[in-house]
């Protein structure tokens, strides 16, 4: 078992993280490769260094960690609220906690990932466009995204790549789940997507696969916006 390649999906219990976890796991069984896909979700407090360290230590016994997909944003960040109505605890939960979780997780990834490994963050596009009543979420997303860029520069000497894929907020929250009765935060965008609608999960899993190829090894610190041409950042 220790010779197996392991992919770890952080934030695998819901939304896009869950969908990516399922997609990568299915891909393993479809093509007959022996990669192990491990999901870390609500059972872990990602803002607790000892809990994250213990989880990675356990995963490392299953094989070589050569790919990590980070999709974690604290759930409280998705509840819209004006900042003037927040107390410090609410601000922390909706914004700063996700930043700490990213920091702690990246530190543990560095200790456990193999040289040449691939780290992919999946985040919502809200940080790029800004959304009223989601200020802590937008702050956290931009902070995490640029933290990853700094990490990409630091880990390049080990040939570890760190890239970010951004998807629309609804896709991030829902993944492959139907919206049902859930009320999603309103996001002002630059308009409709240029391309016809499709599965954000398939789009993202395809990009993760691309980033995992030899050719993908030339990309690091990059931002890939998988929103079918909605934001089109300048």
């Amino acid at each position: 078992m220790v010779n197996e390649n392991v992919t770890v999906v952080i934030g695998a219990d819901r939304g896009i993280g869950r969908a990516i976890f399922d997609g990568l796991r299915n891909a393993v069984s479809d093509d007959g490769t022996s990669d192990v896909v491990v999901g870390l979700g609500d059972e872990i407090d990602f803002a607790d260094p000892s809990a994250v360290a213990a989880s990675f230590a356990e995963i490392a016994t299953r094989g070589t960690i050569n790919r990590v997909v980070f999709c974690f944003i604290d759930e409280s960040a998705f509840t819209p609220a004006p900042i003037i109505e927040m107390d410090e605890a609410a601000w922390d939960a909706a914004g700063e906690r996700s930043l700490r979780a990213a920091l702690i997780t990246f530190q543990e990834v560095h200790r456990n990932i193999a040289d040449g490994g691939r780290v992919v963050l999946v985040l919502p596009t809200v940080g790029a466009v800004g959304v009223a009543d989601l200020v802590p979420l937008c702050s956290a997303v931009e902070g995490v995204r640029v933290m990853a860029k700094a990490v990409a520069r630091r880990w390049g000497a080990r040939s570890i790549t760190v890239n970010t894929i951004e998807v629309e907020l609804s896709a991030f929250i829902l993944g492959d789940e139907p919206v049902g009765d859930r009320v999603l935060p309103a996001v002002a965008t630059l308009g409709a997507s240029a391309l016809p609608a499709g599965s954000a999960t398939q789009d993202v899993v395809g990009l993760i696969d691309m980033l995992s190829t030899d050719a993908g090894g030339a990309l690091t610190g990059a931002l890939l916006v998988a929103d079918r041409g909605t934001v089109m950042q300048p």
Partner: protein
Amino acid sequence: MTKLLDGRVILVTGAAAGVGRGVAVAMAEAGAIVGIGVRRPENAVDVADEVAAAGGTPVLLRCDVTDGAQSAAAIAELMATYGRLDALVHNAVSNRSSEPTDFENASLELWEEHASVTVRATWRLAVQAYPHLKASRGALLLMTSPAGIEGSAPLPFYSAVKASQRGFVRALAREWGPDGIRVNSVAPLAISPALENLQATDPERVKRIESLVPLGRLGDPRTDIGPPSVFLCSDEARYVTGQTLVVSGGRFTSL
């Protein structure tokens, strides 16, 4: 002749030195009443003198931005004395902001030093200033950094917290636009106390940094970073919100 900020009341945090001091003096040159927010007012009398000499009205305020009571009191003092707040410039950063950080082994305590000043205080100051900025249809200006855009390898914590300010600006500009409050940021490349120390200890390294700047030098806080900051706090920028203005002598062109 009317100046851009005549009679406007502006609080600048972290105004004891570096960019904050330069911006405070530039605001004074533009005619503002300048709240000089510092942790130790007794050590910033020279800043007040410089603000006065530049034509502004200095108000020295004790304002450790990690202490919500202090920042609230600083704003309250300006309101009690002048009855208005037209802009808040949050420039303060952790004392350790320019220290290279061993990201992979750094402690949460160090992260907290950065986050408390740059992330949490940004939120808290904005909330405390909100009713006054709404009344004046004023401006919130955050001094971020090119590091928060490029992702600096030696300054990963600083990069992350400064980037969070850009997300904050974009979102809050949309949230407060209907109230007439503009929210912007400036990403300066300028001479800082840390760079002044470096100039004394390793002048060749400073020369190498300067060689990367198309305009051939590091920015002066007062004359290079100050005027764009004045602009963003003035009525001349009445239709500008949600933006980051990179003021770096052309050092960063791909951000």
